[in-house]
């Protein structure tokens, strides 16, 4: 089981799912009509490390964070 965490303005509680890679997370979220419009603009971190590969493997207990568009300052 891995945890999906929604940061910043996405009003959504954490979700726990079975997933072996980010591709599984993508497949899951693309089916959710409330979340799928965000996907184009989300950066992804696994255990607080940003990643740019859908093939990144996931292990039991991993935390996947979704980061929407930012604007500090």
């Amino acid at each position, binding site marked *: 089981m891995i945890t999906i965490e929604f940061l910043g303005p996405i009003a959504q509680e954490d979700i726990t799912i079975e997933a072996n890679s980010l591709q599984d997370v993508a497949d899951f979220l693309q089916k959710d009509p409330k979340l799928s419009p965000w996907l184009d603009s989300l950066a992804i971190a696994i255990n607080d490390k940003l990643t740019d590969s859908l093939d990144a493997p996931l292990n039991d207990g991993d935390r996947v964070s979704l*980061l929407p568009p930012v604007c500090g300052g």
Partner: protein
Amino acid sequence: MMLEIIDGPLSPKEILAQWYDEEYEANYGAFIPFVGIVREEDGIEALSFDIYEPILKNWFDSWQEKARQRGAKLRMAHSKGDVRVHESSYIAAVLSPQRRAALELIDAFVEDFKANAPIWKYDVIQGERIYAKKRSTPMNGAGLLAKKD
């Protein structure tokens, strides 16, 4: 701490004075702070900020390393929560032996901060907190999960 997260508005005079006191004897020739102040516009009362601190810290550390390779040093303070108009929410600074490196670093650092620091901004209008979506930027690498196989 070179990276400070503070609840509510910053105190620019105190922060600049503290940083100056801590650094002026370290033989840097140039000290360039960038002070961000909340502008009164579009009827906002305040801005409000969410910060994801673990990734902000990683982002900041990677910039500190870039600065170190040029003999320079970065400092930064940012608010979380509400910051009213004419108050300060963000101060960054570079200290460098050389003027040219200092000017280049403060520019690159502040621009990358706007684009990639994991901080979310909300307009506060009549007490309501509204995500500043139009002024926000997808981070580097965003869109990964929208890709099809």
